[in-house]
């Protein structure tokens, strides 16, 4: 009995009128946890009842504490008939289970009913007393912290990154159970909400256990998703990155844990020693696909994967297993290259895959011994501490089309008990099937990464798209080489990296350097010497799924780049449908890729960050949407223009071609201006701000064709090496080019990106507006062509963006960050686009200089200082010894380099210097976050304590004191800010209160009365926001970071006047305080620190 949960029901307000006769309500409350229920007294005839109940106490296992939500039901007492439910509140008590998070949940919660929405509010206080039995503690996974944030959370330091954790749980969907035919929609919805809440809790607990097993104490980049598979069930799955985090305030020695990994030590030894032959058989057993014989088939995109991964074979009673087994896996290693547009699309993809597979095998045979088959070197993080990321190979992605098949379990059949949570009886083998599917995809990702010469995948994510019984599983990430010093031993396939990297690379360009072998390039790409260090090769373009590393040198600003694509597909059933889809996938991937590449060049940029490609399946079409943030990396060569060439003369006059060419060139020129891309060459003209880059050096290495300085040179002469040639051979191609050009740039004062950081803007001011927008388009015309559909889809996305700009015009100058588009095909002729993003204001004055300075002052010395990791981590690991040594020598070398760079004769050195120093000071702030500062720390602790105090259960007094302490005078409601980013500008997060993971269903049978579909969804989204805010406020928080709406499933039946919507949101509840408060309170510490880093920077 390791925990006691206590709940107290204080009061209600704004309750709905339940008794028409008296216009009043006789409300009482049921408090339920597990199987125990308590009731309050009836508070007669009041819409604002005061219950002031006793403390209801539940004595429960901590396992239950993790899985179960506290369920509060408000009812209207009725003497003669059944009591009417007013609504419910589910409170996730997980945040109370970590020692560092919230200590009490107390506040007003909206009372939610799935049919009526929010109906009043209830004031509740919840506390948990955990008995501090450490052993028991470890049996459940209480105490493992979860973060949605995809970087190391602000007030923590990662002492160790353990690696990938994943888990999934499966259950029958209550909506599809037979009982659903006889119960009310409300009961069905509530059963579903409750089930998902339970499943999420269980999933989180299981992941927590894995983390504890690995020796970690936290999961960062926790990504939980639902697959509503309809008849075949409900899958809740999650991935994350296990870490050992230290709270920065602790002040304890950072290295205490680093050598202690009793659980994993043997395993890691085994993986790290290449000479241990004894491990080979184990590997072969675990990885039949990469060493197994059917290699020729694997090269084909439609080849089915080896039998061990087949979905339903083990449980299928039918003899013809091939009927139900279908796993079509088109593979695409979306590399960074691919500028050669001449090849026929599918062929090229095929070719690439072949090369990859070949490489993969080669890699497997040479380094296979080192693999830790059970682990995937994947990281869900998208931004890393400096020095962590060594090289980035490119995007790796894998998709697989599966047929969902109801698991036939004769033991259950139709007579199955309708008890919801009978874990033992429910589809016992289904999780394994789903596990195998994902395992297969992950293996593929891993081998793609290996083909790119990388040992890790960062910015990794997984998603699904389901239509009827077809499911597309997708995974993508960025192949990378990480600094092994920060990893737990064995979690990376370190032996794989060869010794080309002995020479260290400066941090502001190092990640651009190719990790793969120049001679055995996995895809065609043009390599040049890095424009920064001139030592290593870089590709001509770089695609990644991660955020722009903070130390990266960029020119100008970034912008959102989207590729949109629709493909019609014949309606089909089962296997035929799956085959059709998987045949289409490679073409779609290729076209999206080409579109991205063209648009990138059109904006005169050379790298994509935060690339996310979503392919959604509908009954008669596939939708593809790729979003990324384009940026000009100064380390990479300047992108050539786009050249138009006519292939079939006669069809199109040369005039026509030249007019298109001119439009393209004009667009490029305009974009350069717009995004302030003034790469080094232009600096000479004195236009814009000069970039302090060793120009004379870059000159030397620049290939002849690129040395042109003038803008006019942009209309590319024929035969120019890096020009990107688009051929016009039919009208389709013309259409494509037109569609390229219709992307309107954002209006003046706006920028947009889909990453955490906006390249080129960092001086945010405090204006923050998070929003969600949903648009559904009905295609009335059944005879649409692919082209027509594309146009419609593109317009839909463009119009959405235009709407945002218009709505947020009062925030100018402002940037839309983390624009996250999700597409779906909910019905045959519907296209749904859901967008969540945040608009943030910035100070226009300071943006100009920032980018220019970046390259200079990020010396690798500083990076070393910023490291929040222990350095001696891998010293004993034999295989990485060489690397570590080389790394250290590298540090020395790069220190030598920085003065060299500084000695270059800049145009306006003095000018630059002052701003440079300013920047250093700015940077000093960030460093201080990581280093020890007792005075400030205690300060912030005191702050957090007092803010918790405020939330203490003093009922009325509480809200009043809150009111007075908030900046907004009259309001009694805590202002809760929300953002999809991991930070709030101008504030410091002083405490993470726990993860918010909420799932709501809303249904209506009076759609017209609620304002139609828009009215219905509008109020539902507003209600979801309100419930998130209320939970955060009750935890004592004032903001949600890394917020995301992961699911927004909308179904309607206007004829029946009905609609239903499911929404799943998540994020991290935090307490943040204004940065200026902190600065003033710790000014002494500041000056000392600043001075120190300034001198550092100067040397």
């Amino acid at each position, binding site marked *: 009995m390791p925990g006691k949960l206590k709940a107290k029901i204080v009061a209600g307000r704004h309750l709905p009128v339940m008794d028409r006769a008296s216009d009043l309500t006789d409300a009482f409350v049921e408090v339920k946890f597990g199987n125990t229920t308590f009731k309050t007294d009836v508070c007669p005839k009041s819409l604002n009842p005061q219950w002031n109940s006793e403390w209801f106490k539940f004595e429960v296992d901590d396992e239950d504490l993790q899985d179960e939500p506290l369920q509060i039901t408000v009812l209207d007492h009725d003497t003669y008939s059944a009591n009417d439910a007013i609504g419910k509140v589910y409170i996730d008590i997980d945040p109370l289970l970590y020692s560092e998070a919230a200590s009490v949940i107390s506040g007003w919660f909206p009372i939610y009913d799935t049919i009526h929405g929010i109906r009043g509010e209830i004031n509740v206080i919840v506390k948990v007393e955990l008995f501090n039995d450490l052993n028991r503690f470890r049996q459940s996974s209480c105490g493992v912290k979860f973060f949605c944030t995809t970087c190391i959370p602000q007030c923590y330091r990662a002492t160790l990154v353990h690696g990938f954790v994943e888990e999934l749980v499966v259950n029958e969907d209550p909506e599809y159970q037979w009982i659903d035919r006889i119960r009310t929609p409300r009961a069905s919805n509530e059963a579903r909400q409750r089930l998902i809440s339970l499943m999420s809790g269980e999933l989180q607990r299981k992941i927590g256990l894995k983390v504890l097993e690995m020796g970690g104490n936290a999961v960062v980049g926790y990504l939980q998703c639902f697959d509503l598979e309809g008849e075949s069930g409900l899958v809740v799955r999650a991935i994350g990155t296990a870490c050992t985090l230290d709270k920065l305030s602790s002040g304890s020695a950072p290295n205490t844990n680093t050598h202690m990994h009793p659980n994993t030590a043997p395993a890691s030894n085994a993986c790290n020693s290449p000479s241990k032959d004894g491990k080979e058989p184990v590997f072969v057993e675990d990885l039949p696909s990469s060493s197994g014989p059917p290699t020729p088939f694997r090269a084909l995109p439609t080849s089915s994967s080896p039998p061990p991964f087949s979905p339903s074979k083990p449980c299928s009673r039918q003899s013809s297993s091939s009927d139900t087994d279908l796993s079509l896996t088109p593979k695409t290693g979306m590399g960074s290259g691919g500028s050669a547009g001449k090849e026929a699309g599918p062929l090229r993809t095929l070719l690439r895959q072949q090369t990859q597979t070949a490489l993969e095998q080669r890699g497997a045979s040479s380094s296979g011994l080192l693999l830790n088959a059970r682990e995937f070197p994947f990281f869900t993080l998208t931004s890393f501490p400096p020095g962590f990321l060594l090289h980035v190979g490119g995007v790796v992605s894998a998709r697989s089309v599966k047929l969902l098949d109801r698991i036939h379990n004769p033991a259950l059949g139709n007579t199955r008990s309708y008890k919801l949570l009978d874990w033992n009886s429910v589809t016992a083998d289904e999780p394994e099937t789903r596990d195998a599917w994902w395992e297969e995809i992950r293996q593929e990702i891993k081998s793609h990464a290996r083909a790119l010469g990388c040992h890790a995948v960062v910015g990794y994510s997984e998603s699904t798209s389901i239509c009827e019984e077809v499911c597309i599983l997708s995974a993508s990430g960025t192949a990378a080489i990480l600094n092994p010093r920060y990893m737990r031993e064995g979690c990376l396939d370190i032996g794989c990296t060869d010794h080309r990297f002995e020479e260290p690379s400066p941090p502001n360009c190092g990640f651009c350097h190719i990790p793969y072998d120049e001679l055995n390039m996995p895809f065609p790409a043009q390599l040049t010497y890095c424009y920064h260090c001139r030592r290593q090769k870089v590709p001509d373009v770089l695609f990644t799924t991660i955020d722009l590393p903070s130390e990266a040198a960029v020119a100008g600003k970034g912008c959102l780049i989207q590729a949109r694509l629709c493909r019609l597909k014949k309606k089909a059933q089962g296997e035929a449908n799956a085959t059709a889809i998987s045949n289409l996938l490679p073409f779609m991937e290729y076209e999206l890729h080409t579109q991205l590449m063209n648009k990138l060049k059109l904006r005169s940029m050379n790298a994509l960050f935060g690339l996310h490609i979503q392919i959604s399946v509908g009954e008669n079409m596939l939708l593809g949407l790729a979003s990324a943030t384009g940026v000009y990396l100064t380390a990479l060569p300047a992108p050539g223009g786009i050249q138009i060439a006519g292939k079939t003369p006669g069809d199109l006059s040369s005039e026509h071609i030249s007019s298109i060419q001119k439009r393209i060139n004009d667009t490029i020129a305009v974009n350069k201006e717009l995004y302030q891309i003034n790469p080094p060459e232009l600096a000479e003209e004195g236009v814009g701000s000069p970039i302090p880059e060793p120009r004379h050096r870059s000159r030397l290495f620049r290939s002849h064709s690129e040395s042109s300085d003038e803008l006019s040179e942009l209309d590319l002469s024929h035969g120019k090496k890096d020009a990107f040639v688009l051929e016009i051979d039919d009208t389709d191609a013309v259409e494509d080019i037109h569609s390229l050009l219709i992307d309107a740039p954002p209006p003046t004062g706006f920028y947009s990106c889909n990453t955490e950081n906006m390249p080129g803007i960092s001086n945010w001011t405090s204006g923050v507006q998070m929003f969600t927008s949903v*648009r559904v388009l009905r295609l009335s015309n059944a005879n649409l062509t692919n082209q027509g559909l594309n146009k419609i889809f593109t317009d839909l996305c463009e119009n959405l963006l235009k*709407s945002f700009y218009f709505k947020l015009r009062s925030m100018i100058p402002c940037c839309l960050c983390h624009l996250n588009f999700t597409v779906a095909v909910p019905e045959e002729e519907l296209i749904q686009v859901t967008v969540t993003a945040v608009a943030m204001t910035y100070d226009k004055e300071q943006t100009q200089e920032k980018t220019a300075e970046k390259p200079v002052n990020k010396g690798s010395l500083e990076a070393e200082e910023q490291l929040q990791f222990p350095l001696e981590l891998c010293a004993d690991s034999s295989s990485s010894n060489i690397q570590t040594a080389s790394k250290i020598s590298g540090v020395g070398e790069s220190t030598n380099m920085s003065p060299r760079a500084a000695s270059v004769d800049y145009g306006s050195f003095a000018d630059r210097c002052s701003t440079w120093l300013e920047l250093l000071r700015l940077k000093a702030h960030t460093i201080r976050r990581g280093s020890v500062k007792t005075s400030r720390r205690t300060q912030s602790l005191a702050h957090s304590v007092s803010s918790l105090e405020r939330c203490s259960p003093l009922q009325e007094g509480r809200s009043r004191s809150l009111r007075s302490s908030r900046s907004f005078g009259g309001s009694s409601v805590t202002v809760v800010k929300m953002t999809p980013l991991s930070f709030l500008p101008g504030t410091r997060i002083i405490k993470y209160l726990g993860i918010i993971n909420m799932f709501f269903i809303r249904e209506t049978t009076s759609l017209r009365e609620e304002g139609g579909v828009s009215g219905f969804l509008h109020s539902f989204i507003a209600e979801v926001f309100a419930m998130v805010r209320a939970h955060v406020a009750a935890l004592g928080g004032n903001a949600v970071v890394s917020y995301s709406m992961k699911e927004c499933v909308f179904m309607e039946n206007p004829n029946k006047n009905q609609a239903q919507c499911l929404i799943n949101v998540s994020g991290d509840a935090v307490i943040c305080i204004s940065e200026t408060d902190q600065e003033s309170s710790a000014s002494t510490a500041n000056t000392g620190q600043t001075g120190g880093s300034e001198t550092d920077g100067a040397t």
Partner: protein
Amino acid sequence: MSVELDVFVGNTTIMDEEVYQLWLDGYTVNDAVKVRMEGGVMDECEASKDVLLSDTMDQYRTFQMCERLLHSPAKLANQLLFQIPPHRQIMLIERYYAFDDTFVREVLGKKLSKGTKKDLDDISAKTSVTLKSCRRQFDNFKRVFKVVEELKGPLVENIRQHFLLSDKLARDYAAIVFFANNRFETGKRKLQYLSFQDFAFCAGQLISNWTVGAVDNMVEDMDVDLDKEFLQELKELKILITDKDLLDQHKSLVCTALRGKTKVFIEMEGSFKNLSRGLINIAANISLPLRLYPCRSDRWSAADMKLYLTHYTNSAHILDTFKHQVVWDRYMGVVKSCIFKMYHD
């Protein structure tokens, strides 16, 4: 191809004041879009008509959802559904309860009943305020009336606290409630020239001097119902016109004081009886329509009127046999200021 669903929801509720006003004024979405286009908002952000339409629809929906809360403004501050900064909340409430003077002038003094509500389309046609806006304003009057009807304490303060209105607006509502409660007719042709603000001033005077609340500030309806005892006492003022001696005495006192001080003295002297009768009759019959216009004459200037009334009031004090000095002051104080207010073009 058609947009089936289109919503935009911000964590902080986005509200455009211009669109809010259009919504309050009862414009349809399409009309509002037209007005906005003419206003040039499209140039601001390279917006198209579609964008404008989508934005207007979103805002209208938001306002409709907020409307329920605006009916009891106190809820707006502690509801959880919309995160609205307090200064915006104040704006929302103030504008929602704002009304058109032309409209209120039409319903002032009428019973706030369903019958009146049915006449709103006529009023709408007459005042060219949209029917939707008329309904909102009428419902606002009714709602405020209903709430304060049952409350104790000062009327203006009750309205201000209950509906979180500014002092000015709360006073206007107090006047509306007062008129509606006492059913003072304001629709007479002779009163047409008076604006709502004129009446609001009079109501304010009456509330602070003639109601129960002027004597006792803790009874129900204290500011809405006139002090009955006072009304009874007013009847006794009749002596000023019924007693011939008193009347003559009064007249001579006033005339003595006025002589030589005004150009229209002759006329004043001549009409003294009528004027006095008019004034006193109001007092005796206060529950009947407020007839404050008897002294209005084209040839009297405001200064003349003031002079006359001052002396008329003061002279009564000198009358030996006139015993109702307190009532007289309470009565004439209000009448005087009301007449001054009304005595304009």
